[in-house]
């Protein structure tokens, strides 16, 4: 059973996006929200139910970070993740929540991990506004 702290923003990060040498903190606080990173073997593993469950637990935003298109180690993982994030956006709109509470980022393991942190920081800034 994982550590039960309710994240405000949940980041589903594909393990293969992080360069081997890079280390990424697992949880930190920024702009008043508590951000938790959940490592996934591949973003193809994200299920719409998991994304929606995060909202049920009170998260204000979910971000999926996948490898750049065509560069997924499992060949089609990030493509499937895009389909699911798109579907999740549609569902959020139907129940009246803002579409951009679910976001998707692409990051290549070749770029440095700091860039990734920078992208995440921007995304959190944007999300914290909602």
């Amino acid at each position, binding site marked *: *059973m*994982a*550590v*039960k702290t309710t994240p405000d923003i949940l980041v589903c990060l594909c*393990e*293969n996006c*992080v360069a*081997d040498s890079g280390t990424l*903190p*697992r949880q930190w606080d920024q702009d008043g929200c508590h951000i938790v990173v*959940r*490592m*996934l*073997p*591949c973003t*193809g*593993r994200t*299920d719409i*139910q*998991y994304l929606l*469950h*995060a909202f*049920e*637990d009170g998260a204000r935003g979910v971000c999926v970070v996948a490898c750049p298109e065509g560069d997924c180690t*499992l060949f*089609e*993982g990030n493509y*499937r993740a895009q*389909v699911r994030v798109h579907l999740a956006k549609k569902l959020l709109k139907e129940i009246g929540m803002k579409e951009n509470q679910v976001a998707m980022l692409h990051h290549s393991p070749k770029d440095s991990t700091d860039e990734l942190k920078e992208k995440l920081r921007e995304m959190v800034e944007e999300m914290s506004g909602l």
Partner: protein
Amino acid sequence: MPEKYHIHTHPEAPRFRIEGKLGIVDWREDCASCQNCVKKGCVYDIYKEETTALHEERGYLDYIYKCKGCLTCVQNCTKNILTRVVNTEYERLGDDYYKPEILLTTWFQAETGSIPVSGCGYGGPFSGPGFDSMWTDMSEIVRPTRDGIHGREYINTSVDIGRKLNHLSFNDGELDVKSPPIISSPLPLMFAELPVNWLRGSVPGILANVAKNLGLFSIVRENEIGDQDASMVNTVIPLLNNGSNGDSFVDSPMVIIPDSPDVLNTVESLKNAKAERIVAVRVMASPSVAGRVVSLVGAGVEVVNLVHDRSGREDAPDSPRHVRDVVRDVHGALLKAGTRDEMTLISSGGIALPEHMTKAVICGADLVTIDIPLLLAIECRLCGECEHGNPCSIRLEETEKEYGTQRVTNLMGTWHNQLLEMMGAMGIREARRLRGETGRCMFVEDLEKQAFGRLFGKRKTDYVI
């Protein structure tokens, strides 16, 4: 003579998810939801949790890294939508000495209390640096093996610590010489003092408790010894700071003082304070350590604690030697000085697995000290967060006492059994006879010279040890 020493273990499940090595990823969209889905056929029933995890969202990924890697589901799925991945978290565990396999097997042993047994042969590299560059001997037809682990024959793993006489002397049948004070440990190992950043919460208490229960000794820095009750006193060995007179630890069985230029008179003053108390000198391993140890022992020091760094290396500018070479060097020098039998040599540092303990004793140490494996037993992941001052991801300091005690006891139980397995295989039934018995082990560089050197001439590069 202690009665048959046996550590009773009892399974103790981990509190946090173990970083498994292999996981399964599937594209659920393409699933044809066959009636006899391969997930139902999993022999280890891994997917049973998947259905429940989907309903109550509780870290749904917990189950996927429990996969045993038998590939039956991946290869049988009619739509071929399952594939296997290696958990990169697993590969980032520990460091280059404490490899992920070491953490995983230590966690297994701390959980089950039984020695890890698995099928198929050894899959690792042919040889490796440090203790991986030596094999222990086995004996079959000529020397009998002792089958201690199944309890057929009693293999005694206790060792004596302190100064010993070169020989006894009798006067018409009566023993007329009194041998110096001796303390005996049931296993050739001691608990070393905890590295600083693990001195948090219940951790020191747990280790002291296990040492007391199992009759093992644990080294604790002088200023960290709080008020201990009577039962703790005879298993705690204070590590005195430089220049301390050790008066407040009069009835400890042994004390350790760091080496320093005038260490001899400190030893003398401590001995005068209490002759019954054994005084050990802690020496840092270095290229010239052998001479220093011989001179110390010549001057009457009873116990020498040879300290290496965490990955078992001496501190030397280039190509530092490993425990296996430093200990052999010190043991050989003392032999030639004729004083090896009269003192006790304790080697610290670089002992990550039970085989390292056995190999260090074969190389010449009487016993070893361990620290990191004990922390791994209470689920530490060597993630290094605490070393950078960040909060520990599994909150080690809040581990309950009974839980931690059982975990470490389980680990000591498996280390004892694996020591018995190795000694049994080489046909030795006394740990005291294992010390320095390099006749019962093989070093890779010797085997290479003897077998391949004869065929292929000289090596291009020396063997990496």
